[in-house]
């Protein structure tokens, strides 16, 4: 209990890390619901990896070109540009290939993941400078989140959440029935691009804050859990975000209390919640079924 009180105190040493973690846990599932609904879950693992490769690439370019951005903010700007660039270009290329129907979805995403993972390692290996700093960024060392970094994260993810809410009927229509959207005169390609942009931004900031593993976990696990217990679209998004935020908070508690790494703790907890809710729902259904048969 004292740990919880310490975490909730304003003077908590890791206050920025806690808030950042909860923000990622809150917003990643809002984007993740579209991964689940559009059956693009594996894109959730490929894109964060691609985003991480973008961070590594930006640092490599800096080293090769001899450009020296001094200080933490300079490094962060570089990381944002690289991360966003790779994630967004990757999304657009994958979307274009999907429309042309080349290869299967699994093949496209598998190749993307393999490329991104290999490229990340190669970019890091080829960079003679700042490897330690870059490794921190790639791992998503949330503990080092500064006040400025947190404000930026809150601003960006807040804007993403607001955009997802404001444009929900457009995103839902193009996701559920693209043909209907076109017949109704909606610019389906434009709405897809806006959605991909929001996805790219969320993943980039998620990766830089919490790393690819946590970002993937929060993109996928809370929406899958929420899908088991909701019947309406608005509830689906809200419950997914709530699962994500609570998981992030509880994960932080356990990691801090038992001195465990935060990222794997968050993901393990999110998956545990998914399994627990799935089993509980199955049991409830089985009981109802038996009662009906009597």
């Amino acid at each position, binding site marked *: 209990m004292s740990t919880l009180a310490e975490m909730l105190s304003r003077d908590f040493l890791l206050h920025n890390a806690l808030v950042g973690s909860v923000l990622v846990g809150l917003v990643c599932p809002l984007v993740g619901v579209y991964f*689940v*609904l559009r*059956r693009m879950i594996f894109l959730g693992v490929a894109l964060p990896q691609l985003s991480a490769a973008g961070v590594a690439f930006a640092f490599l370019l800096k080293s090769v070109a001899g450009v020296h951005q001094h200080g933490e903010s300079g490094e962060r700007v570089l990381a944002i540009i690289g991360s966003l660039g790779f994630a967004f270009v990757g999304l657009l290329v994958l979307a274009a290939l999907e429309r042309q129907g080349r290869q299967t979805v699994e093949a496209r995403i598998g190749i993307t993941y393999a490329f991104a993972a290999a490229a990340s390692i190669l970019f890091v290996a080829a960079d003679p400078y700042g490897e330690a700093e870059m490794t921190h960024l790639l791992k998503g060392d949330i503990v080092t989140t500064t006040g400025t970094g947190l404000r930026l994260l809150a601003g960006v993810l807040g804007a993403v959440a607001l955009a997802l809410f*404001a*444009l929900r*009927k*457009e995103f*839902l*229509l193009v*996701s*559920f*029935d693209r*043909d*209907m959207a*076109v*017949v*109704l*005169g909606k610019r389906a390609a434009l709405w897809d691009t806006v959605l991909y942009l929001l996805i790219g931004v969320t993943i980039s900031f998620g990766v830089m804050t919490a790393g690819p593993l946590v970002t993937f976990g929060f993109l996928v696990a809370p929406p899958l859990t929420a*899908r088991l217990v*909701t*019947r*309406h*679209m608005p*509830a*689906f998004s809200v419950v997914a975000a709530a699962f994500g935020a609570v998981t992030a908070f509880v994960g932080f508690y356990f990691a801090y209390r038992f001195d465990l790494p935060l990222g794997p703790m968050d993901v393990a907890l999110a998956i545990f919640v998914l399994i627990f809710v799935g089993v509980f729902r199955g049991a409830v259904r089985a009981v109802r079924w038996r009662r009906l048969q009597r």
Partner: protein
Amino acid sequence: MDPLLRLWGVSLGYKGRPVLDGVSFVIERGEFAALLGPNGAGKTTLFRGILGLIPVLAGRIEYGFDRRATPPGYVPQKESLDPIFPLTAYEVVLMGAAARVLPLWPVGRRRRHLAAECLARVGLSDAAEEPFWALSGGQKQRVLIARALAVEPPLLLLDEPTAGVDPGAEAAIIDVIMRLNRDEGLTVVIVSHHLRLVREVVRSVIWVEEASATKGTAAEMLSTERLVDAFGTAAGRPL
């Protein structure tokens, strides 16, 4: 003569290669027409062309209504929609009602009322809060008709609305479509393989075959010879 839809020497196809060429016909306001023909003849291509889902390669399609202000009502096959979406029947219909609501604007009370009214028109008021995926095939199809009606369309286009449903559900769907055409004067174009349905309820047939399409009355177009030729001996038997 009050044409609602006119095709002038239209070519339609994919990746620049025409599947249909030189298609010309007129759909009158209040008409009930069927797109019919053997598998692979180009019915779906023509249907998608009329809906504006594929580009016209040559010729032109004229709509007797403002497509932007009042788009046509589109009823896809129920199988084309993914059951993973957590939507109730009412929420599916609301998508049609919200068609003219600008981005960023909320769906107002009038539109919500319209969605509920359209569900009532297809006899599914009681299923409004049921999950769409949990409905029977026939009910899903009627929900999709309600969604198309919620657009307040001048023209209703249905893709195989009775495919994969039992006879009772089929009768309910046909009853809804016939009422919309007969009582409300809604122009209906339907893609169907269902010859009995086409013979009984449709006034005109657009026969799609050999990269072209011909329009005539149901009696003219559904001659025994044509049906036997297209579908085999069973199709030519009296129904």
